[in-house]
């Protein structure tokens, strides 16, 4: 089959690889009909995530048609149209029972490796390094889906792929980010990063009752989208000092809730940001926590900082004294996607939300490498791309 594979920094290719097959009794195989490129795929593209191997298949935002099911699979049948969450979860461990699906104890075959790096292993993910499971990704014609009764949600309605595909990751991720922000009535929520996750965090903050949402980015098309679809006020951080502007907008209080929808590849300005870039190149620092630092500085005393943006390792110069003395709460984690699938699908079906507004590009899988370049360069107004295998 054809698949998009990783070969190192800014080197992805479309190659012929073996087709996956059923391995465990609860596996299913789906024929992928649509799969998106995620902002976090760019962390892999930049070679920021440890334990990648040349030839690994990327992709973790898939939907498709069930073509094979293992002997223990009860809820899926051949021919079902499904969206597959990026988190692989067994459904049986204590964490899954608590609906903390991205913390599943059983789904990472390389749990020992993750444990040596982080103390404990989170759930396995598709196409996101060997430490995070080593499972082949979804930017391919076929995908093996372990624990098929726990992850995929069947789409019974005739909603187009564009409206349901983003249930696999970015819509639930933006929603959980807003939920983690503990939004209360009259709250002002600031969202750093207006990519797909940021856009859904903005939408979800509104759904959860935020009074005002302030969106921060440097690309006009993303800020326009946040204004148009999320009724957000906007700050272009290349034009204005974010702290000064936020204080001005909130009477000096600062936003009550801050969401870092950027993560490890943040672009900052000034000397500190330049120093982060150098340290990262010298492998003295894994992440560039520019947004994290700024959000800590800006957040209202006693406020909440929610971090859906992906970080991979160590950060430097984190002002933890400010976190402590300002009494901030930090909430984060990979998304417990399975928890949100049904409620968010219901909202899409009811017409409350149409997630397709973030989609800017569509291309056949063969054009994947070019689409990674376009997305990476933020060229052509690219915010979200669907690949069609």
């Amino acid at each position, binding site marked *: *089959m054809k698949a998009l594979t990783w070969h190192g920094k800014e080197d992805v290719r479309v190659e012929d690889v073996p087709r996956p097959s059923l391995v*465990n009794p*609860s596996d299913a195989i789906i024929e992928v009909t649509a799969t998106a490129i995620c902002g976090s795929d760019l962390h892999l593209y930049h070679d920021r995530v440890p*334990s990648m191997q040349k030839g690994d298949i990327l992709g973790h935002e898939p939907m498709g048609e069930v073509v094979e099911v293992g002997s223990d699979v009860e809820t899926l049948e051949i021919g079902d149209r499904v969206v597959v969450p990026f988190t692989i979860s*067994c459904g049986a461990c204590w964490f899954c029972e608590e609906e903390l699906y991205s913390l599943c104890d059983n789904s990472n075959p390389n749990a*020992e490796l993750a*444990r*040596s790096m982080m103390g*404990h292993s989170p759930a396995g993910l598709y196409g996101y390094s060997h430490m995070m499971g080593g499972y082949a990704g979804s930017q391919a014609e076929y995908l093996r889906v372990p624990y098929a009764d726990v992850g995929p949600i069947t789409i019974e309605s005739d909603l187009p792929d564009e409206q349901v595909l983003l249930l696999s990751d970015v819509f639930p991720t933006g929603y959980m980010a807003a939920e983690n922000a503990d939004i209360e009535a009259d709250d002002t929520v600031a969202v750093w990063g207006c990519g797909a996750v940021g856009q859904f965090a903005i939408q979800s903050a509104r759904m959860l009752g935020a009074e005002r949402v302030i969106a921060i980015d440097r690309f006009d098309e993303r800020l326009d989208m946040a204004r148009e679809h999320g009724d957000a006020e906007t700050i272009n951080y290349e034009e204005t000092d974010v702290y000064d502007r936020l204080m001005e907008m909130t009477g000096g209080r600062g936003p009550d809730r801050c969401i870092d929808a950027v993560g490890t590849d943040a672009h900052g300005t000034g000397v500190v940001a330049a120093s982060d870039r150098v340290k990262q190149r010298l492998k003295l620092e894994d992440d560039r926590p520019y947004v994290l630092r700024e959000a800590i500085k800006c957040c209202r005393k006693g406020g909440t900082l929610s971090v859906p943006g992906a970080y991979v390792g160590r950060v430097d110069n984190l002002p933890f004294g400010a976190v402590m003395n300002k009494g901030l709460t930090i909430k984060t984690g990979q998304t417990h996607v399975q928890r949100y699938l049904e409620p968010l699908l219901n909202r899409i079906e009811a017409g409350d939300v149409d997630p397709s507004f973030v989609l800017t590009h569509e291309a056949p899988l063969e054009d994947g490498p070019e689409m990674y370049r376009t997305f990476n360069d933020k060229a052509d107004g690219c915010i979200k791309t669907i690949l069609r295998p």
Partner: protein
Amino acid sequence: MATQDTTRDRQPGDAQQPDRAESGDGRGRLRRAITLLIGGVLVVRGLRRRSLRGLVMALAGGVVLGRALGVSPSRSDSESATPMGAGESTEVTRSITIGEPAQDLYEAWRDPETMSKIMGHFADVQPQSEDRLQWTVQGPRGWDASWETRIVDEQPGESIVWRSPADAMVPNEGEVRFSDAPGDRGTEVTLTISFDPPGGSVGSAAARRLDLVPEAIAGKALSRFKSLVESGEIPSLDENPSARGSGDLV
């Protein structure tokens, strides 16, 4: 997952020396700095290699780093960076919490089929009788090692102890204990394995040649046991596709 480690590297003639006292003086600090350096180099080199050996190297480096920094769940009473050296015995203890009752776990552990599944990552395990298992490990260049273990003590629902004969190729012993975890969390399962108990330098050489890392063996065996009893299967990368081919060609 909820795991905890206590690893002891016993060295003959160096029994209960409290190493902690040393960490305050210059020698201790230098040793710690060197350990940190070695750990860091292993992690970075290992991750850069992008191969199975590289990952193993990174894993070992991570363990070394974690110990030196005192942040890893692997705590070592000594600061030795090599878990298994000449003339040493290595004993490792790992714990995991499994959401099933102790009695069920005891019975599952006692089933030879379970053993062959959960130890499959390093040994082929065949039942010889109710209390005896035959273990075979494939070493490099077709060099195999094989030994028998026999259950020497057990308390149903609580513990099982097994041991190889003293003259086995790789002398070893093991113990698994089951105790209730708080609330609805199930059972805490603690596995202790020891390769080459004191006195067997020949066995130690064999263990080294086989690249047996007790910490990795114990950790993986417990993870696999937990996955099997909780979810009915062990997560697998068999036939996992990539541009390198089919299978877990890490």
